[in-house]
């Protein structure tokens, strides 16, 4: 398959995976503080293979307390979807940017318009957790021509036949939901995190990254035993909310990198 057919995000992630590298995708809420673009660069420098950038929504249904807080903080600073994309267009951090947001913001802006803005700002993928398989066609039709890959989620509760249909429709990577719950740090990695990754990698060649409930370097390494990569959100965002700054963020992501590389 050519890069044009599978899109920039997936061809980049496949290339890294096929070279034997585990994929590390940290999450940061766009506009959370005035240094967030500096943080992006720091994350890329610390070994991220792609970065997930949240566009904050007033009612983040699948997010726990930490990302709710970062979303509210960002919205209070006047963050808008077009503002986040305009900010992103001013930087080139050298790794793919994937936005994560809720469908109402996409719908309100208009599929074509915001897909065009994403492309113009260098975004190569989108995760829209409240837009499941049955509802995704309208958005995906607008996103694909703009080289914005639509990343779909598979949950521990997803049955096999449905999982196959989702994998066939997911581009960039498949987001494997690590546990039945909302985003948030967990002291112990759920058994479901490794199980769901095994189930998905068995049926698809698209890279499979596990997110939700992966909080520490050890957990990230454990997940990567069965997954192609890992998404870490709340554990990083909490540190940013506590004021760790770009250096602290880079240090934490560097520790995740070291752990999954050692594993």
């Amino acid at each position: 398959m050519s890069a044009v057919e599978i899109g920039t995000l997936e061809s980049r992630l496949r290339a890294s995976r096929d070279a034997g590298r585990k994929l590390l995708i940290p999450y940061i809420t766009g506009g959370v503080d005035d240094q967030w673009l500096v943080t992006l660069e720091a994350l890329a420098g610390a070994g991220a293979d792609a970065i997930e950038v949240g566009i904050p929504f007033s009612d983040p249904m699948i997010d726990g307390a930490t990302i709710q807080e970062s979303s509210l903080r960002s919205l209070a600073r006047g963050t808008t979807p077009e503002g986040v994309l305009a900010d992103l267009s001013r930087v080139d951090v050298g790794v793919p940017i994937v936005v994560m947001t809720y469908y109402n913001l996409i719908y309100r802006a208009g599929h074509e318009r915001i897909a065009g803005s994403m492309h113009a700002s260098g975004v190569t993928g989108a995760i829209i957790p409240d837009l499941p398989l049955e509802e995704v066609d309208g958005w995906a039709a607008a996103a694909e021509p703009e080289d914005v890959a639509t990343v779909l989620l598979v949950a521990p509760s997803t049955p096999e036949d449905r999982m196959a249909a989702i994998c066939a429709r997911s581009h960039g990577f498949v987001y494997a939901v690590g546990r039945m719950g909302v985003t948030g740090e967990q002291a112990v990695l759920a058994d479901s995190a490794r199980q769901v990754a095994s189930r998905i990698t068995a049926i698809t060649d698209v890279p499979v990254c596990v997110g939700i409930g992966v909080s520490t370097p050890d957990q990230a390494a454990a997940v990567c035993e069965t997954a192609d990569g890992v998404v870490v959100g709340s554990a990083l965002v909490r540190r940013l909310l506590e004021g760790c700054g770009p250096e602290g963020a880079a240090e934490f992501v560097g520790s995740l990198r070291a752990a999954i590389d050692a594993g």
Partner: protein
Amino acid sequence: MTTEFASKEITMGDPGPTGRFGTFGGRYVPESLVPACIELEEAFRDAWADPAFHAELDHILKSYGGRPTPVTECGRLSRELGVRLLLKREDLAHTGSHKLNNVIGQGLLARRMGKSKLIAETGAGQHGVASATAAALFGMECIVYMGEVDTQRQELNVFRMELLGATVVPVTSGSRTLKDAVNEAMRAWVATVDDTHYCLGSVMGPHPYPWMVRQFQSVIGHEARGQCRDLLDGGDPDLVVACAGGGSNAAGIFAGFADATASALVAVEAAGGAAVTTGIPGILHGMRSALIQDETGQILEAESISAGLDYPGIGPEHAHLADIGRARYEAVDDHEVMDAFQLLARTEGILPALESAHALAWVMRAARSGEIAAGSTVLINLSGRGDKDVAQVRDILKGRS
């Protein structure tokens, strides 16, 4: 006055596997919840086609819930307004509102699905009290999510739920009202879906909830149509009026009239939360519907005297009924609601819930302006009783004088 619609299309019918009412509805939930929604839809379709399920539901609603609720003809208030005013008395149902119809249905369904726990969101507390009641009746655990602002406005309902054995969790995120309680209940459901049924309180949320809750509430409309025909020599009311936040009592009474009669249907929203009147289409809480939002799609906080109508959206079937013109949507402000509350108390000896007083407030306005022709027959769904609101009304009246 009875006129059957000639149209072959069913206005309030089955929204099909995608849960669409026209362009509204759908199932916009995270993947973790999609299998649970599909399982619920299958279980509901199966139960709704099962005479034994209906027999048990009807028996409980009658012997425990106090159904059928009467239709009361208002003598003094009719004369004052110059219309023939009828009230469908959901305030007389057990727990004091129409909410019981839905929770008995969902409780039976949860038991049939082998779920041992219920979670629910509540605004005014009516649905929370009803859910706690159903949980007690069926021997289930119950957790109710309630905005912190609402736990303060409706302190006594919190205590009622606790007396009934439920746990009330105050929600401190966002605007701390009904929409945030829904967010939190959905979040909790993701983590507990194996053994827990989410007992959603209105005709909103992801498919099958808008349809399922309407079906459970349609008992109001089916009873009322028959009761009106008895009172009106086989005729139907000219207007059927109900308040709408999420819109379950309105959907329930409309279901008896939308297809079977030519009665005009009017839903009355709170001016501070008027999704159909002032909102635009969007996606929230699993559904595409009319929502109050800003120009970028952030959901705005609704503001109303009534916690039960403090919701920035409305059920998707209402957005559809407005779209096709089968129902009208009007808004009244808090002052009109207070006047209606007091007028019904003084002329008929009935304290309505502040939510229900919205419906009467519009009828008062429209009857006085001549928008409702003199002598028209108007059926209002009196969705709940006002005991829960007495302390708040006292404080407001003190503030006014």
